[in-house]
């Protein structure tokens, strides 16, 4: 008598004449298998090519410029018999990826050949971060590694207690000058010295409460953000905190539980909570600026900055542009086709007016964001009035 | 789908406690135990208070006992004892519980051919404990005399059981086993009817094993008691 599925109803989209529309540059399918595990994957780019990996073990370099046939869109493609779970990170002419078998591999940017690889203690879960002459990454069993950029030898490593059950994936390691900032599944943010790996300070922004193991998950999934010399962190079942990077004291702490990446500009902080409600807070004081519940329960993805707007994706294949001042939806475009393929948008990379999208069905698409003909038409109208006023 | 079964129970929900109770006692009078049980159970579920509930516990237990379901009768009575520790009918509850436990291995054949002593000892022990609990708690209750009689009968039954086993081992030439079983009777059931036979079996077993010291001592005790046993 009662339906068994337990996914709450998404809020329906309000019709909107979107000023933007997507013009597809090129489209490459990486693998037919649905991509189940893409938390740790990410685009990286240089001026000619875009690099992305797929959990089935492919790493691929794609030309940014549109080539006529999709096959020569692919500059090179490397295949590993292990699952690639993190990366690729571009550093110089090396591409760094982490695999499920605990291997950190460095590939040559030109042809994807293996330069060196190091066996770590377990699955390399967080995207390798390169700073100075060291690579920083984390394994799923709670170890933080600093390795030598040239040959991948381990410089230092330290261990941290990690709860048994947590959300899949973990945030990137953030390195600023000699400070290494890392956020753990136990809801703790730590700062270590980049040279020795010695712990400088440690603060907790989420503490497990509730009695079932699900309620006790307190992961920090969203990537840490450093803005105007202040560190920002968002915990699941935890808080949004602004932290002094030198000693770990809180500037402000806000009640917000979320696991998607948040973004900051010089005035405000924009984040989405676990139910998909967008919120903005003042960068300095944390005072709430606006709240936008239009995308509640629409499985909102990570936030990105697109010019002076926010860009986010939802679970039904839509991309939304939201105005940063009042949080009103400015534009909307559909990535998935009518069969529902591409509904799950995993990763988006913004490069000026161009977007690169990786979706759950293993498709990588490059779009140019162009004004929709409706807005062209309106512009002409506006143009005529201006001309009219001008005359 | 839950709406369906609530439809059927509708009439019960509306019945008052008196309806249930009268239907139950009517069935109780003309010995339709299952109908009585059904009504009492419903009464307890729908009206778990008041004097009706208290009284229905006892009558329900009696119905179960008569319906030859001693285990559920005992369960109802123990619930009654827990809920109403100071109830005036408490002696009756204890007595009925003992009766139910006693009826587990009794069968109509016992009057002529079979002897309950040859069967399951555990239920006899349960009945024995329930009866003694009744006598300790309510020594002056009107059931005390009937209970003490049953106690003696049960004690004898248990002693007979021991003796039958001892005799069995004696016939299998396991004389040490039969001697120890006979000892057990003398220690645990000193006043049972079969003590004389037990003593005799003990002496024979010792004699068969050539334990002269034990044998002579046992024979002494036997002669000593001979006079006393003959007299009463």
């Amino acid at each position, binding site marked *: 008598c009662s339906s068994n599925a337990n996914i709450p109803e998404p809020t329906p989209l309000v019709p909107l004449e979107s000023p933007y529309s997507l013009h597809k540059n090129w489209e490459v399918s990486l693998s037919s298998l649905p991509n*189940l595990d893409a938390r740790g994957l990410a685009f990286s780019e240089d001026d000619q090519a875009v690099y992305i990996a797929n959990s089935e073990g492919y790493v691929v370099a794609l030309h940014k410029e549109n080539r006529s046939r999709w096959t020569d869109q692919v500059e090179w493609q490397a295949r590993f018999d292990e699952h690639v779970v993190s990366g690729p990170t571009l550093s110089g002419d090396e591409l760094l990826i982490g695999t499920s078998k605990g291997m950190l591999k460095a590939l040559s940017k030109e042809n994807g050949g293996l330069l060196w690889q190091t066996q770590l203690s377990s699955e390399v879960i967080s995207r390798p971060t390169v700073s100075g002459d060291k690579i920083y990454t984390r394994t799923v069993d709670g170890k933080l590694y600093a390795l030598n950029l040239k040959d991948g030898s381990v410089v230092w490593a330290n261990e941290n207690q990690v709860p048994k059950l947590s959300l899949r994936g973990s945030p990137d390691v953030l390195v600023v000058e000699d400070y290494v900032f890392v956020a753990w599944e136990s809801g703790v943010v730590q700062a270590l010295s980049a040279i020795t790996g010695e712990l400088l300070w440690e603060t907790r922004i989420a503490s497990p409460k509730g009695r079932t193991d699900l309620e006790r998950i307190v992961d920090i999934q969203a990537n840490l953000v450093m803005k105007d010399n202040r560190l920002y962190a968002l915990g699941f079942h935890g808080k949004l905190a602004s932290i002094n990077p030198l000693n770990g004291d809180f500037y402000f702490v806000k009640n917000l539980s979320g696991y998607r990446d948040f973004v900051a500009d010089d005035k405000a902080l924009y984040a989405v909570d676990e139910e998909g409600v967008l919120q903005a807070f003042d960068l300095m004081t944390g005072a709430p600026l606006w709240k936008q519940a239009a995308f509640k329960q629409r499985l909102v993805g990570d936030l990105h900055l697109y010019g002076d707007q926010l860009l986010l994706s939802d679970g039904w294949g839509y991309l939304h542009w939201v105005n940063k001042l009042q949080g009103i939806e400015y534009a909307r475009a559909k990535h998935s086709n009518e069969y529902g393929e591409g509904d799950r948008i995993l990763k988006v990379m913004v490069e000026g007016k161009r977007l690169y999208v990786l979706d759950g069905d293993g498709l990588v698409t490059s779009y140019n964001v162009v004004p929709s003909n409706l807005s062209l038409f309106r512009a002409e109208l506006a143009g005529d009035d201006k001309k009219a006023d001008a005359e | 789908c839950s709406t369906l079964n609530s439809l059927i129970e509708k009439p019960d929900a509306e019945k008052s406690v008196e309806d249930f109770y009268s239907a139950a006692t009517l069935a109780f009078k003309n010995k339709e135990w299952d109908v009585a049980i059904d009504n009492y159970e419903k009464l307890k579920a729908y009206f778990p208070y008041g004097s009706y509930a208290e009284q229905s516990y006892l009558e329900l237990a009696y119905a179960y006992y008569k319906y030859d379901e001693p285990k559920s009768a005992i369960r109802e009575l123990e619930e009654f004892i827990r809920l109403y520790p100071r109830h005036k009918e408490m002696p009756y509850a204890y007595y009925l519980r003992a009766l139910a436990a006693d009826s587990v291995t009794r069968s109509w054949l016992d009057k002529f051919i079979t002897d309950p002593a040859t069967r399951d000892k555990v239920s006899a022990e349960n009945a024995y404990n329930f009866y003694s609990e009744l006598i300790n708690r309510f020594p002056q209750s009107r059931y005390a005399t009937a209970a003490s009689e049953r106690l003696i009968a049960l004690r004898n039954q248990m002693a007979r059981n021991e003796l039958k086993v001892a005799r069995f081992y004696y016939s299998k030439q396991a004389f040490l086993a039969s001697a120890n079983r006979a000892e057990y009777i003398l220690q645990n059931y000193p006043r049972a009817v079969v003590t004389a036979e037990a003593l005799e079996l003990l002496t024979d077993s010792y004699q068969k094993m050539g334990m002269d010291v034990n044998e002579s001592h046992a024979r002494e005790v036997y002669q000593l008691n001979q006079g006393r046993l003959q007299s009463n």
Partner: protein
Amino acid sequence: FVVDKIEIEGGNRISGETIRTYLPFRTGQNLDGRLTRETIERLYKTGFFKDVSLLQKDDSTLVIKVVERPSIAEIKMEGNNLIDSDALKDALDSLGLKKGRIYNQLDMDRIIIDLKRRYHNQGYYAASVEIISEELPRNRVDLKIKIVEGEPATIGRINLVGNHVYSDKRLKSRLQMSENATFGDGDKYSKPKLEADIETVKSYYMDHGYAEFKILSSQVSLSDDKTKVFITINMDEGPQYTINSVQFLGDTIVPQEEVERLITFKKGDVFSRSAVIDGVKDLRERLSEEGYAFAEVVPDSKLNKENRTIDLSVKVEPKSRVYIRRIEIEGNTRTRDDVIRRELRQLESAPYSLKAVRQSKERLARLGFFKSSDIQSKRVSDDEVDLVVKVEEQPTGSFSAGVTLSQLDGLGFNIGLSERNFIGSGNKLDLNIATTDAKKSADIGLTNPYFTPDGVSLGAGFYFREINADELDIADYTTNNLGLRFSMGYPLSETNSINYGLKLDSQDLVCSDSFTYCHDYVSEYGKSTNSVQLSMGWSHNSTNSFYFPSKGLKTSLSFEAVLPGTSKASFYKVYADQSWFYPLSENISLQFKAGISYGDGYGDISELPFYENFYVGGIGSVRGFEPNSLGERYDLTLDGSDRPKGGGLKTVATTGLVFPVPFIEDSSNIRLSWFFDVGNVYKDLDAFDSAELRASTGLGVSWITPVGPLSFSFAQPVIYRSTDRTQVFQFTLGVGF
């Protein structure tokens, strides 16, 4: 103030006296602050009341005002299918939530948490539980437990890190959880399954020499929508070890070379933990066979890291020899104590012998009087043990009675009783009396398996049968018999026994008019024969249960002959039957039976008298064919009947897979079998022709009902002739098999 009178307000379910029993003070006592607090606290602790208040009315009466907590009238459950309703009900009972119990909100949260934890444990992370309570008149409340289970988290990926020696594929094939399960719930995640799988990987390595194998850590991570689970198991294999030396310390009681034989591994072998565990178990069992039931056998391995060898030392501590003090028998509500005790091979006041206890268990199971029988030991002191024999009775016979009316043979009544444990005395009684106009028969037999304390059995029986053939035309001939039967048997060993039989029989052969063959026989050998028949048989039975044996061997060879000179038609018969049971899994077993029976006349009759012929067909021989329909048939013109003739040589064999009935929990007294029967009957030895053998296959059901063993079968003949009369469905009641 001093309390003279106590009044109680608001207590209707809980009576006044009950409340008084909880009061910490008596009337006439001074009630100070401490006492009032204690009273309130005590009354709350009972859990009966929502709130309690004490008021002082005029100067000396105390009023206790209580508001009772509502009691639960009805509990409804909705949306639960992973945990079915009665399992849920038991869970609620254990948490104190039952019809009629007191309802308090505190319990509700505790129950929600517990139910949620049960679901999370099974991987239903998205499950939600709500309890809606609905007020009812008379301070009662209806509870509705609303469960939305959602989808169980399926396994996204199982990731093994650090397994260099054994590949992912080899290890993953051994795990319960798998990434893609075609059927069943292999791909559903649950904590117990994860722990079991980790243990499987650990013991796999430990059994292949990796003594230092360690599971470093295991992480479980959940996709954002809580439907996919990713499992990472990090392990450190360590080097492979071989055994350098094995020594035994302490008093091993059993001679050294026998101990060596018990241990399967020796110097140089790859170390295997399970081999060590088995060896220790076998040694401990061997010691308890010597009477040292509490012996301790403790293996200790010292790792030699350089050359990767292990020095294994097994410390044996026999402790004291154990004796049996008393043997109690429980659960025999019908069977007599000595009927069970005489089957036991372990005596009281005797050394404990595991062999004897095991034999006793087997004999109890073979007795067939009990649904289940077990012998447990209860420790009484450090050198004495009591044995408790627990049995559960079951019907051991069949009973039928009835009145029949048919136009063919008028009014008739019959009574049929066959009881293997007559009123619990262990004696076997068969009593069948049936009388109708045309047919009168009676068969009474009593056997006492323990006529002597050591198991010499004695049995006697009387039988009488008179059929008025022309009334019924079922057969072309009938035999009216009257006679006495005696049987005596005794065991030769634990499993073999021998039996002798004597039968005094007087028989009249009545042929139906058209059956000329019968008349020729009568003219040659005469109508009635009186004979004395002797029989002797040897049998072996080492099966592990009476009704549905799944293990062991059953053989019986018997020889039956008419004493020469006592009858004109003297014949002899030889039977040889062999059945063999092999357990395939815990409740599936393979069964193979074969039987050969041969009979021949001797003296002045050259072949087996036709009324003594064997027949084949139907249940008990080759199913799927009409009963007794196989083999040659009389020639209608020559012999005056076309019925099957039967024959002097009967060869039957059957093999079957026996399994319990799926989908019902207690299938202890019912079994299904997929069988393959083959066999036929021939005139005599040289008439045997394997091409003539008939065969069939099908599904058999055997069910032990309170009225008696019932078996029926659906069979499809496989090798048959077009002339054979087949019968797909057949059933019999009361025949042992």
